[in-house]
C-alpha cells in the first residue's frame, strides 16, 4: 500500500493507538458506533480512501466529527483510512 509506506513504524503504532482510543471515544473501541457512526471494514466497504481521509482531516460540519488536520498529516489520514477499511479492531 503506497500510503502506508511513508509512515514509519513508530508513528504507525501511535496512529493505531489514536484510532482505537480517541476515535473509539465516539465510534466505539470496536468501531461499531456510538455517538459517531459505525466504521468497521464492513461499514466502509466500497468507500474511497481519499474520501475518508478528507473526512478525517476536515471533519463533518454540523456533527461531532472534528477536523484532525491540526494533529495529523494528509499521509497519516490516508494511513488511518486504509487501516479502518482493512483492520478489524477487536
Amino acid at each position, binding site marked *: 500500500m503506497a500510503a502506508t509506506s511513508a509512515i514509519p513504524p513508530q508513528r504507525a503504532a501511535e496512529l493505531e493507538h489514536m484510532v482505537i482510543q480517541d476515535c473509539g471515544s465516539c465510534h466505539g473501541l470496536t468501531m461499531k458506533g456510538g455517538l459517531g457512526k459505525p466504521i468497521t471494514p464492513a461499514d466502509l466497504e466500497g468507500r474511497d480512501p481519499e474520501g475518508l481521509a478528507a473526512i478525517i482531516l476536515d*471533519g463533518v460540519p454540523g456533527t461531532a466529527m472534528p477536523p*484532525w488536520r491540526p*494533529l495529523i498529516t494528509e499521509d497519516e489520514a490516508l494511513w488511518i483510512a486504509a487501516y479502518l477499511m482493512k483492520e478489524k479492531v477487536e
Partner: protein
Amino acid sequence: MTRALLLVLSLAAFSSSAWAEVHISGDSEPQRCLVGGNIAVHSSCGTGDLGVVIERATGSVLVVDQSDRASLCRVEGLGDLSHASLTFSPDERFAYIFGRDGGLSKVDILGCAIDKRIVQAGNAIGGAISDDGKLVAVSNYEPGGVKVFDADTLDPVADIPMGGKTVGLADAPGGRFVVAGWDSGEVWVLDHSTDPKDPAITKIENVGANPYDALMIGGRTYLVGLFGEKGLSRIDLWADPPSAERILPDYGKNEPDLPVYKMPHLQGWTLAGDSYALPAVGLHQVLWADARTGAETARTEVAGQPVFVTARPDGRELWVNFAPPDNGKVQVIDAVTHQVKQTLEPGKGVLHMEFTPRGREVWLSARDDNKVLIYDTRTYEKLGEVEAQAPSGIFFTDRAHRSGL
C-alpha cells in the same frame, strides 16, 4: 486450634440471595469475610473505601482500595468498555457496569467476580439505579429507549421504547428515572413507584434539538446539553408540571470554533458555591454561571478543551482535565478567585478524576501510561500509583449514596 473466633455476625443484605457473614478472628489470623459461602478474594470486609476502575480496552475492571492506595483484584470478561460507566448497590457490595456493547454486568466487589451478566441491547450509553436500590435502568442507542431490570436478578422488569436513542439517564427521588431522547427532543420522567413494570410517564416536550447528554443535580434540577442548537435546557423537577427553561443561550456558540477532540461530559459540570462551573465547547475556557438565574458570570482561560470540571468535595477547588492533544495536563482552579493555581502533568492521556469522599486525595487515570495516579489535594504531591491497563473511569463506592450517580 488456638485461633479464637471472637465474633460472628450474620448480616442480612437487602436480598435473600446475598447473605454476608463477617468473621472477625483472633490475633494471628487476618480478618476474613465469608461472601455467599466463599471466602472473599481479598482481605477487606468493608467496601466503604473501595472503588472500581474501568480498564476500557481490555473489558476488565480493577477493584481498588483507597486507604491502601492499591488494587485488590481484577474482574475480566465485561465486553466493550469504551464509554463505560457504573453505579453501586446501596450496600456498596455490587457494581452495575454499563458497557458500550449493551452489556450489563453485576460485579461482586468483595468476591471479585461477575455475579450476573446480560447483554440487553446492541449499543448502550449509560445507566442508573433507583433510589430504593431495586431497579437498574439502562439507556440505549440501539434499539433505543430505556430498559429496566431487577437489581438483584437482572431479570427484565420494564421496556420503554421511546422511539429512538436515549441519553442522560439518571435517578430521581421517589422511584423515578429521568431520560432525554436524542431524536425527539423530549425528556421523560419514568415513575416506577406505583408499578415497577408499568411506570407512569411524564413527558416534557420542546426541551431542544438533539439532547446529547444530561445531568441530575441534587435530585431536583435536570440539565440537558443540546447538540442541535446552542444553549442548554434546565428542568425543575419540583415544578408541577415540570417544563424546560433555556439557560446560557450562547453556550457552544463560539466562532471560530476550535476542534473538539473529545466531547465534554455534562458530568463535568459542578456546583461550586453559588455558581456552576462547566467546560466550554470549542473554547479553551471554563465557564461560570449563576446557579439561580443560569446567566454566565465569568470565564477562566485554561490549557485546552476541558472535559471534566470536577469540584473537590469541599467545593474550594476545581480540577480540570482536557481533550487531546492537551490530555497530559490537569489544572486546578480556585473557586473563589476563578484563577488557575496549579498546572500538573501527572501522566499521558488523563481521562478521569475521582476524589476520595472527603476530598483529601484524588485519583487520576492516565490511560496511555497504564497507571492510576494518586495525588494529595493540598500539597499537589504524588502519593502513589496503581498499575492498570488503559484506565478510564474511576468510581468510588460513596457514589452509592448520592442521587444522580
